């Protein structure tokens, strides 16, 4: 027909994404068997999805179930695909979008906590200041000598980010973070 006419988009999907990207926290209940984490991670890398944070551990020893918490980012359309693609993995029992459930239950977002170990070295005023600020952030000292502190801090991601930023000029040496663990408020399970 009029094949020579106007320039067009694509047989593939390079049409402009008009939807906004948003962050979501997913809880994924899986059989704790070899390779299951590789399946989940491979799905994200293979299909080009984002992972902001991922934590995993066996949570029910008798049934060998692990709970993976993934913080991801995407348009509503992509987020729906992520959920369905995860559900296709054979050892995946359930995928719950905690962010959506939180909204349904009238909350702003799910309970999300992260733990970080933060090592700060220094002497004199900087050292005193680091300890004073750690106290204000309710960070625990879990190791120290005369020239350093190692703090353990737990809280929301934003709080940990802020704490690390503050420690930077005070002699920050290294940071180790667990990634987000999350569940929803209220008496119900996932």
């Amino acid at each position, binding site marked *: *027909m*009029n*094949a*020579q*006419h106007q*320039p*067009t*988009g*694509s*047989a*593939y*999907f390079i*049409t402009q994404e008009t939807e906004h990207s948003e962050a979501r926290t997913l809880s994924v209940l*899986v*059989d704790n068997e*070899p*390779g299951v984490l*590789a*399946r989940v991670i*491979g799905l994200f890398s*293979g299909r080009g999805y984002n992972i902001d944070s991922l934590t995993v551990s066996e949570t029910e020893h008798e049934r060998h179930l692990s709970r993976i918490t993934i913080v991801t980012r995407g348009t509503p*359309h992509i987020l*729906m*695909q992520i959920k*369905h*693609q995860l*559900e*296709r*993995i*054979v*050892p*995946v*029992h359930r995928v719950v979008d905690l962010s959506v459930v939180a909204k349904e239950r009238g909350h702003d977002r799910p309970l999300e906590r992260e733990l970080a170990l933060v090592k700060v070295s220094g002497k004199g005023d900087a050292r005193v200041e680091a300890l004073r600020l750690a106290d204000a952030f309710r960070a625990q000292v879990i190791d120290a000598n005369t020239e350093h502190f190692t703090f353990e801090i737990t809280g929301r991601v934003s709080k940990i980010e802020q704490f690390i930023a503050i420690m930077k000029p005070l002699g920050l040496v290294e940071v180790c973070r667990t990634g987000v663990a999350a569940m929803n408020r209220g008496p119900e399970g996932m």
Partner: protein
Amino acid sequence: MTGQALERQSHEAAINQMTGAEMVVQALKDNGVEHVFGYPGGAVLPIYDELFQQEDVQHILVRHEQGAGHAAEGYARSTGKAGVMLVTSGPGATNAVTPLQDALMDSVPLVCITGQVPTSLIGSDAFQECDTVGITRPCTKHNWLVRDVNELARVLHEAFHVAQTGRPGPVVVDIPKDVQFAKGAYTSPQMVPRTSYHPRVQGDQEQIKRAIQLMAGAKKPIIYSGGGVINAGPEASHLLRELVELTGFPITSTLMGLGAYPASGKNWLGMLGMHGTFEANMAMHDCDVMLCIGARFDDRITGRLDAFSPNSRKIHIDIDPSSINKNVPVEVPILGDCGRVLEDLVRLWRASANADKAGLQPWWAQIEKWRARDSLAYKPSDDVIMPQYAVQRLYELTKEHDVYITTEVGQHQMWAAQHFGFEAPNRWMTSGGLGTMGYGLPAALGVQIAHPDALVIDIAGDASVLMTMQEMSAAVQHRAPIKIFILNNQYMGMVRQWQQLLHGNRLSHSYTEALPDFVKLAEAYGGHGIRCEKPADLDDAIREMIEVDLPVIFDCRVANLANCFPMIPSGKAHNEMLLPDEATDEAVANAIDAKGRSLV
């Protein structure tokens, strides 16, 4: 427990004690497997030793593991049963990757058993070691490395279950050699299914009712069916035909769905998509209600997405939730097995909706106008064989036979889909999703093993067929009289067509300067060779091919520069098709703009 019961239990356990290799063969038997396609090697020798000592499971020796995989796919798609392949570790497993991905994309139930180096050597870069489960993880529905012989039977049964249920797909069971030798307890297939895997088959009744309402109110409806209907079994195809009859709706199908509705049926519009018919694509574009059954809105189908069927309300039936709303948003999603949902649709339509067939008259009148455009037309010739003509003659001369068609990938594949009439499901084996050149010849071998008395034809291209030509040797060995019907134009025709469309007719490496003499090649393998160069000789040559009880390579010399039309050029919508009579050199050269050029 009484002493007697205890004794009985230990007795049963004693009889069920066997080696891992024995378990493999026992599990094949218990899952109804009659044929295995494979190639031996160091890490599967114990299993081959067991195969040697029994007669229930027949082993088909191929010449390359890729051939085993495609043969098993052809076997599976023509029977509806799982295809089984058996290969060794390392290169055996890596050669299986292409058919595994092929089966994944086309939803073919394929069970691949691979040998692995002994558990004590895993991770040591041992001879013929590779990380099989790692390599095959993204190209299987699921895979297992079995480290404990007592887990082996359960895993094998589960592998068959996963491959064949829900959306079918390939699975890999990787078995280290020491596990094949070790003794353990065999358990029968009556096992507890794992709790995390439970594909949903029954559609939601409320959604089905909504679908019926939409369909009943449609003025310009269309049914767009796909491979899911074939996978749901012959009963689903039967129900589809019944639904079309009841509603009077026009129906088109994807490449994978051909045969679910007969090509001779009066509501048939032909295939849709990139090389689909004008009437099918125009009807898709202009319809007001679209009923998609077991298809997945692939890019070859939709063309330019933001112009895809802009004014229709869409119903989508699929067993895979991730296929729904993936590329195209739909109004009524129905998650379930196509067969079950079709059963509900037919029942509810009978009970509630009155087919307003008269109301569809204007729509059919419009479709007839599009049909009159005769989009599959081509310029006939008395001097050279036109490839379309060759497929048409092949169809006419074989339609009274019990015929199965496989193809390779390229122009010949599209011409076969356009010009060969498929009347029944499971008769058409082609690599749709992955587009694997070299699929057709081994697939034909697999089909012939499953249907020894049928006429099995691989409609091939001269380039594709050379990719797995070695399986001619397997066909001769197993007395599988497959017919390799090569539309030989000496080009990678589809590559050349795209170079004409996109790259200023610079035919970079798409011409094969040194093709073998296919007749001599057939004879060298112990098969029969035929060459045909003139249209007048074609019918007799095809008859000769049918009559010879040997594998045949038919070198059908066709017009070298014929192109495959109609076509939706990349980046265009359904109503922007390039039709054969408009495809002048200039139109072809300008059909795709700069943006479309980056696509495939």
